[in-house]
């Protein structure tokens, strides 16, 4: 079934998948699921010097039918305390929406998400209450993010 599926998969997706597997970006892994080659299991390590350091975050990524004309869909599966990620793991990131370009790739998307963990942006919030916490008392919000990392993202 996988071989039959691969025959139908656009060449671009095959190339991207091969490269993700053979030359993974540091701190990121992505592998397609067996029964759906457009659906990837992703792991991102919390960046050093961020409140997510030491955490292993699971995500899921799906390449819709019109990829690469449309962006991949990505969501966190691990609970995370971050002003740009909501309770369902949805991510507020411009390249996943209006700033998407077919020149971007799965790899660039995942690197951008990793960078978002290093640089939370409470001025463009998705989780309103988390963003407010971040603005009112950043030290305390960072402490909560660390506690959630220990509780939910411990390896």
């Amino acid at each position, binding site marked *: 079934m996988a071989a*039959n*599926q691969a025959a*139908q998969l656009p060449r671009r997706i095959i190339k991207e998948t091969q490269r993700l597997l053979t030359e993974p970006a540091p701190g990121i892994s992505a592998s397609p699921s067996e029964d*759906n080659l*457009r*659906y990837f299991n992703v792991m991102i390590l919390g960046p050093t010097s961020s409140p997510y350091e030491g955490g292993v975050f699971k995500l*899921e990524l*799906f390449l*819709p*039918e019109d990829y690469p004309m449309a962006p991949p*869909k990505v*969501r966190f*599966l691990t*609970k995370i305390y971050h002003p740009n990620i909501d*309770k*369902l*793991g*949805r991510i507020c990131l411009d390249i996943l929406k209006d700033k998407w370009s077919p020149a971007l790739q799965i790899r660039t998307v995942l690197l951008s998400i990793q960078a978002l963990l290093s640089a939370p942006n409470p001025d463009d919030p998705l989780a309103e209450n988390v963003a407010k916490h971040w603005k009112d008392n950043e030290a305390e919000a960072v402490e909560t993010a660390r506690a959630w990392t220990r509780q939910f993202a411990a390896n």
Partner: protein
Amino acid sequence: MSVQVPRNFRLLEELEKGEKGIGDGTVSYGMEDADDMLMRNWTGTIIGPSNTVHDGRIYTLKFHCDLNYPARPPLVRFQSKINMDCVLPDGRVDPTRFAVLGNWSSNYSMETVLTELRRAMASMHNKKLPQPPEGAMYS
């Protein structure tokens, strides 16, 4: 082989559509537990169609989408009491008497279920059946 949208992304699409509101608002739905990352439990409403005994009544129902959704149909149960040929005495919608669930296709959605239940309310058989008092709920 067509592109298969994985369960979670499919439910996120349904969530966004439900949040925007569907058509004229005669059916609607939303997630029951905003903290459940698996998005299993949902609440739907149907406003009874006019020219039937259901006219103007607001029916609430629950959906349970397990991990096999949408390959397998959701479990659907009325919370508001209703007398209808496809609804069992405890409020569950009987898949053997409701084709959307019985002949489920992964292209169907919770919206399909609600729209078709509303259509069934207006069928010759259902539109005149005596009904429990408005607002009565299954325990």
